[in-house]
């Protein structure tokens, strides 16, 4: 009864993922939206590692490694995009991200 089970970790991970979703849907600052995406990725990572530990399998942790790689690449490209956009439009409001709209 008083041990930490896999459900505890999965609940925390679900809460973090949902918080990230709420942030993506309700914020207009593109950098904050970006941080919320990182929060969602971390929620997924937590469930990967928790299940990997409780099932005695290493594959989940290797996947977390790849998720971190993708997050790092995403950070580099995403922030570069934001800087390029800011130079162009002097704003990082996601409502102004309409360059491809005609």
């Amino acid at each position, binding site marked *: 009864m008083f041990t930490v089970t896999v459900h505890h970790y999965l609940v925390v991970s679900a809460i973090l993922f949902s918080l990230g979703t709420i942030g993506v849907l309700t914020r207009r*600052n593109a950098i904050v939206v970006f941080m919320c995406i990182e929060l969602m990725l971390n929620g997924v990572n937590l469930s990967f590692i928790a299940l990997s530990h409780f099932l005695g399998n290493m594959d989940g942790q290797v996947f977390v490694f790849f998720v971190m790689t993708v997050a790092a690449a995403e950070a580099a490209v995403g*922030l570069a995009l934001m800087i390029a956009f800011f130079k162009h439009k002097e704003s990082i409001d996601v409502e102004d991200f309409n360059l491809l709209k005609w």
Partner: protein
Amino acid sequence: MELLFFYLVALVAVLSGILVITCKSPINSAISLVMTFFCLAIFYVMLHAPFMAAIQIMVYAGAIIVLIIFVIMLLNLGTAVQARTSHCIAWGSVVGALMMLLAMTFLKGGETTTVQGEITKEVVAQVGHTELIGQAMFTNFLLPFEIASILLLVAIVGAVVLTKREV
């Protein structure tokens, strides 16, 4: 005792996650995000994955957050971007809460499989966590590893090209 510690860390993680999405200034959000990352690193240590905890601190708290704070300070916006209208926030929260509810019911109804792999915490303590990760990554996951390295190369080139002067 472990459960108490878990609840403490989980509380801090969720509270700082809430701060990330509610703080007005992006800098405050970034600092709260660092707190969440540290809490997750503590979870990874509790789950006998010390290498992942170290990577979490180095890559997320060390590299990604520094990059984000660097960009926030470079653009120097402060709280210039105004908030969404309140009905947008309400709908977003409803969707998020619905998703969380769905996940919770799924978790409550589901039971984890009792199939156990061979990596127990004794094996991790004996062989070493980094060695186990390395064995898995350089044997079973060699092709994804190479693809990840190409992805990083493309990201480097992309970041340089995007921030060039004449875009």
